[in-house]
């Protein structure tokens, strides 16, 4: 078995190297093509007959010719004087469509060119945000991410590609971005942002985009931006919804109430960890998170191209801070909400702030602990659980104690994944009772004998088959344990007469140990 998996691994490596090679060849071809074009352009300029040259040689009076030469030789000494055009010729062409907008213009483009933006998180938000900023000609883009590209990222993280699965997200994004716009300097930071290094990483940038996916990183980024006086554009997305806020804008020092609110002003306390859902667990639609990333790029361009004169304290931002909420399937899709200003006793941006650069640098601020985490569920005793191997035997083998053939009716297999997931794939004979239904069932309901609130259908159905043991399975083996506990609390174990237990490790373990063909989504 081991040798087959080795062969498989090598095959995969070869395929991946080959496709990376194809990518490199294509990039080489593009680079060679550009080089050739530039050479040709130069040759053309050298050899072509300029109509003015022609006139100068043949079409004018000689006295005038002498005057022109005199004038030309006079200016020759300031040949190295300031360039006539502030942008390169190719930049006028490349950015022409945005240059002619009244909000951008030459000054706006120069501000973008001189700006540096740090994009933290190169995922569903960071990919589109970075693409538009690089496209628009922001001079320097920093990318922070410690993760590698996975296949399940590709439906929304548009800078990565199938051939770059396994590459670091930052490196993968650089391949895309440098081919999109070679004028932009892309600076890699291949690691997760850590409190100890946050200040040194963020310091040299003008602005930060929070494209991360955890509460801990959101507090860390906001605190760092307040300490360094950087505006922060923060977005998030889950399922079909997104949220966007521009924070610490204007980025006035802590204690100045005219500065924009920070993340802590809006959310002084972190949410309970059990209320935080990840894209992996809750799902995410590509264009939904894409819209939010594109909006971050738009907000960044708006802030960067603003006339710096309007940032002076005497005309500080008259616009109130807002939260934009987006629901891809809503009507209307967008809603803008007025937020509070700086909180007078904010831990980060008020005059009584307790968060300092020293504390951050020393590593004494533990953001992960501050936000808490959900510990792995360990709710059941060993005799309330069964391994996937043993459950597989129970399904397929003759019972060693009774000599009986397995029968579909010997037990009930309850799959507690949500209905949509159950529809994707399920074990034969399993019945679906979504976890959301299980947890939203009140305990007192089932005890009510008379009228009152109805006992949910799933409870009465299981009560109707009181003699069969119940096996509970879910995706990873956490929800199944909670369900077993709940079923017992609801009295479904008939006072201990009926066995109820969970399948350890869920369908993930089932796929890894029993049925490799079971879909991995």
């Amino acid at each position, binding site marked *: 078995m081991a040798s087959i998996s080795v062969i498989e691994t090598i095959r995969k490596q070869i395929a991946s190297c080959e496709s990376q090679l194809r990518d490199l060849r294509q990039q080489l071809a593009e680079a060679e093509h550009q080089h050739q074009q530039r050479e040709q352009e130069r040759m053309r300029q050298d050899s072509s007959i300029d109509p003015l040259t022609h006139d100068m040689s043949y079409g004018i009076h000689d006295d005038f010719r002498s005057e022109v030469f005199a004038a030309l030789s006079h200016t020759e000494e300031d040949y190295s004087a300031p360039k006539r055009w502030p942008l390169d010729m190719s930049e006028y062409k490349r950015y022409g469509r945005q240059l002619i907008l009244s909000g951008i213009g030459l000054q706006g483009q120069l501000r973008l060119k001189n700006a540096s933006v740090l994009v933290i*998180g190169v*995922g*569903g*938000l*960071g990919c589109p945000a970075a693409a538009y900023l690089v496209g628009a000609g922001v001079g320097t883009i920093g990318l922070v991410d410690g993760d590698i590209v996975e296949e399940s990222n590709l439906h929304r993280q548009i800078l990565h590609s199938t051939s770059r699965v396994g590459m670091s997200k930052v490196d993968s994004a650089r391949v895309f971005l440098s081919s999109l716009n070679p004028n932009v300097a892309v600076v890699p930071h291949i690691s997760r942002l850590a409190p100890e290094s946050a200040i040194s990483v963020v310091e040299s940038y003008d602005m930060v985009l929070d*494209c*991360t*996916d*955890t*509460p801990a990183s*959101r507090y860390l980024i906001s605190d760092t931006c307040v300490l360094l006086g950087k505006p922060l554009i923060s*977005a*998030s*997305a*889950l*399922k079909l*919804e*997104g*949220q966007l806020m521009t924070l610490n804008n204007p980025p006035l020092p802590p204690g100045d109430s005219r500065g924009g609110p920070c993340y802590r002003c*809006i*959310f*002084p*306390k*972190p*949410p*309970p960890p*059990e*209320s*935080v*859902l*990840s*894209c992996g667990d*809750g799902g*995410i639609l590509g264009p939904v*998170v894409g819209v939010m990333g594109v909006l971050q790029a738009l907000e960044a361009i708006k802030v960067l191209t603003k006339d710096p004169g309007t940032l002076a304290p005497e005309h500080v931002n008259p616009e109130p801070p807002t*939260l934009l*909420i987006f*629901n891809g399937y809503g009507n209307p899709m967008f*809603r*803008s*909400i*007025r*937020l*509070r200003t700086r909180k007078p006793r904010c831990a980060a941006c008020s005059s009584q702030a307790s968060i300092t650069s020293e504390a951050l640098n020393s590593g004494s601020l533990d953001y992960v602990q501050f936000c808490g985490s959900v510990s792995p569920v360990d709710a059941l005793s060993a005799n309330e659980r069964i391994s996937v191997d043993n459950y597989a035997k129970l399904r397929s083998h003759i019972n060693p104690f009774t000599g009986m053939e397995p029968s579909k009716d010997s037990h009930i297999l309850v799959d507690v994944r949500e209905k949509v997931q159950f529809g994707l794939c399920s074990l034969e004979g399993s019945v679906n009772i979504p976890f*959301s239904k299980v*947890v*939203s*069932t*009140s*305990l007192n309901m089932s005890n009510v004998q008379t009228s009152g609130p109805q006992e949910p259908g799933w409870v009465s159905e299981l009560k109707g088959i009181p003699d069969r043991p119940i096996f509970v399975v879910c995706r990873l083996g956490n929800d199944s344990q909670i369900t077993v506990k709940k079923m017992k609390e609801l009295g479904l174990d008939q006072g201990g007469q009926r066995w109820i237990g969970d399948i350890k490790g869920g369908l993930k373990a089932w796929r890894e140990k029993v049925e490799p063909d079971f879909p991995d989504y």
Partner: protein
Amino acid sequence: MSDQAPKMKDEDTLSITVEFTGGLEMLFSNERKHSLSIPIRNEDGTRTNMAALVDYLCQNLMKDPRKDLFILDGTVRPGILVLINDADWELEGEDKYEIESGDNILFVSTLHGG
């Protein structure tokens, strides 16, 4: 409200809209938008304010037993923004804001994915 309760007169009630987003709707029968008639005064005769509304929602509208996913320590849990007519309730007096007929109250749970 049960069927036997005497029908409240219009002047005794406030008609408001309550909305839930960011996943909170799951705790409220998976409905994002609820049109409600709530008593204009509490039992002690004081005007219904946001604190009373939150309590009312928890008692009457929320069927899910996981109350701590909505309220914690007597108020809306951290990570939920409360908006009164599209403005942060901190701009309107927070839980002391007295509700008016026609108000739109929006509860937004923050998202963290990216």
